[in-house]
């Protein structure tokens, strides 16, 4: 990113958002670690982990908003990229267990020993090294998105058809990862993690650090998205969203633009998944469930499509509500509430929380400038000429 791209991408809303995330990323871990338990501001560790999860969801929501809000690609399978990133991280964490597993095998994870496998499958090679796993976190979702997008966008699959095949993609992966012989722990997935880069994943310090890292990833992801959408490429993306064939007749290779942004988005979703797994302690095939991907789209719709800040906010708000409602008497009705929320937002707040706020803000700003111009004119004793439309 060049300096002019950075300055161009930071408007007031973006700056406020970054400051808030940075403050949370610093203060929550500090309040958790430094203040004595029982003090008023002390943040319990379980809350740090919970909020860490929300931040990961916010990154996922950001990645969806980048393609849906700005380029009109409604992916209903983005959870797949999130889960793949999560699995890549999970594989690293599995290899770190070593002899501390139930069966004490230094190389093979427990589930492989249980299945009577003699040696490590080739695709597990390298995952004992953190740098390799980190690379795969970006590479695997990116590659899948690239291949999928290359086929779909070149064949000009758009709109609801694209949404349906993304659903099919994540469902196919769900079924594949369920199988024991696929080599990723089947139904149980990967769990029982011990440490990450030598630090105990359960320790307070590690959790606080993971939370801070998630906030950092959210900041970086947000900056990347802002840099993209505030560049000329961002204008092309909006043009594709609003009038795809017109854009083509101007000489833009629409499929290349879609492929670029779809791949970037998938990599971001992968990072979100990778940060999520050590904080929740498990990754299993249910992360591929189509419902998860749809839920993520709802977060974006609630927060405000095409605003980036709204996507992140929507993810946090909806998930906070989910935590709140699913832990009480209302738990059986959560899905109904989520559905109702989606319908209400579509009907009453089609621009989402942030979109509606922005529209209101712009309008009131216009009024204020008009009012101040009118009062200035009155002071000068000049009558405002009627504006001709």
């Amino acid at each position: 990113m060049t300096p002019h791209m950075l300055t161009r991408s930071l408007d007031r809303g973006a700056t406020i958002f970054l400051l808030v995330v940075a403050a949370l990323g610093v203060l929550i871990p500090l309040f958790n670690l430094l203040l004595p338990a029982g003090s008023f501001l002390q943040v319990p560790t379980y809350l740090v982990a919970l909020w860490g999860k929300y931040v990961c969801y916010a990154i996922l929501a950001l990645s969806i908003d980048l393609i849906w809000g700005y380029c009109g690609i409604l992916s209903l399978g983005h959870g797949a990229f999130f889960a793949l990133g999560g699995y890549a991280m999970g594989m690293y964490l599995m290899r770190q267990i070593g002899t501390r597993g139930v069966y004490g095998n230094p190389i093979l994870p427990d589930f492989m020993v249980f299945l009577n496998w003699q040696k490590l499958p080739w695709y597990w090679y390298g995952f004992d090294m953190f740098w390799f796993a980190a690379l795969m976190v970006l590479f695997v979702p990116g590659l899948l998105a690239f291949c999928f997008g290359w086929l779909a966008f070149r064949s000009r699959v758009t709109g609801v058809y694209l949404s349906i095949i993304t659903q099919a993609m994540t469902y196919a992966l769900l079924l594949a990862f369920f199988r024991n012989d696929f080599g990723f722990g089947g139904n149980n997935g990967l769990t029982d993690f011990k440490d990450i880069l030598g630090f105990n994943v359960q320790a307070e310090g590690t959790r606080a650090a993971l939370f801070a890292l998630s906030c950092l990833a959210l900041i970086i992801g947000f900056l990347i998205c802002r840099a993209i959408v505030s560049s000329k490429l961002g204008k092309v993306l909006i043009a594709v969203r609003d009038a795809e064939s017109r854009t083509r007749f101007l000489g833009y290779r629409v499929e290349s633009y879609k492929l670029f942004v779809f791949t970037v988005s998938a990599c971001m979703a992968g990072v979100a998944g990778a940060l999520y797994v050590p904080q929740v302690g498990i990754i299993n095939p249910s992360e591929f469930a189509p419902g998860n991907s749809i839920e993520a789209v709802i977060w974006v719709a609630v927060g405000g499509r095409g605003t980036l800040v709204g996507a992140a906010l929507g993810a946090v708000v909806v998930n906070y509500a989910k935590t709140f409602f699913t832990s009480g008497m209302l738990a059986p009705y959560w899905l109904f509430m989520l559905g109702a929320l989606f319908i209400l937002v579509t009907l009453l707040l089609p621009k989402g929380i942030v979109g509606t706020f922005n529209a209101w803000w712009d309008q009131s700003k216009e009024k204020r400038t008009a009012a101040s111009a009118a009062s200035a004119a009155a002071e000068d004793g000049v009558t405002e000429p009627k504006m001709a439309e």
Partner: protein
Amino acid sequence: MNVMDTRATSAMLYLDGVHVSFDGFHAINNLSLTLEPGEMRAIIGPNGAGKTTMMDIITGKTKPDEGTVLFDGVTDLTRLDETRIAELGIGRKFQKPTVFESQTVQDNLLLALNVDHSVRGTLFWRGSKAESERIDKVLETIRLTEARNRLAGSLSHGQKQWLEIGMLLAQDPKLLLVDEPVAGMTDVETHLTAELLKEINKTHTVMVVEHDMTFVRELGVKVTCLHEGTVLAEGTIDQVSSNERVIEVYLGR
């Protein structure tokens, strides 16, 4: 690239024996037409004559079943897609004005400029003086300087038509295809549009499809009348409008 060794024709646009049918309906039937460099041609014809389909063929949206379509004497357009054809220098204004409504007038023109259209080029794009000067010039030509920061969606119908013509100018193509530029315009706007197109024609080859006969008369250029996907008559507006077959087609037999 499908560039032939030598120019097959001096024409800017050369259509020969073009056929297209959709599910058995012959939209274009043995259509042959040539447009010389620097020419402006008006295309008239009743509804369903194949005017828009012809533009679809030239711009790569529709592939012909048969026939030759050559651009600039060397390039076979039937094998290229929309993006490639636009890059070669064929710009199109649609029947229904299609501008990018949620972006400003200025940004619409910026998007249309014929500069680097690659993903990398647009990602690392930074405005240049030359670009903004070109945009200023186009804004002046289409009389939208005052509206440059307004959203294109908030423009009046006539202004949108002009903005789209402005986008064509920014694109600076060798050949402009203009589909019904004055549909829904007032008389004054129609007159101004004719002036604008004549101005554009000084430096570009133009093909205009239009129903409005007053407008076509005002352009004062060679007219081609299409009917059932083939050329019915060609000549000055007076010759064409006094042609018996043309009268028959327009008034019914």
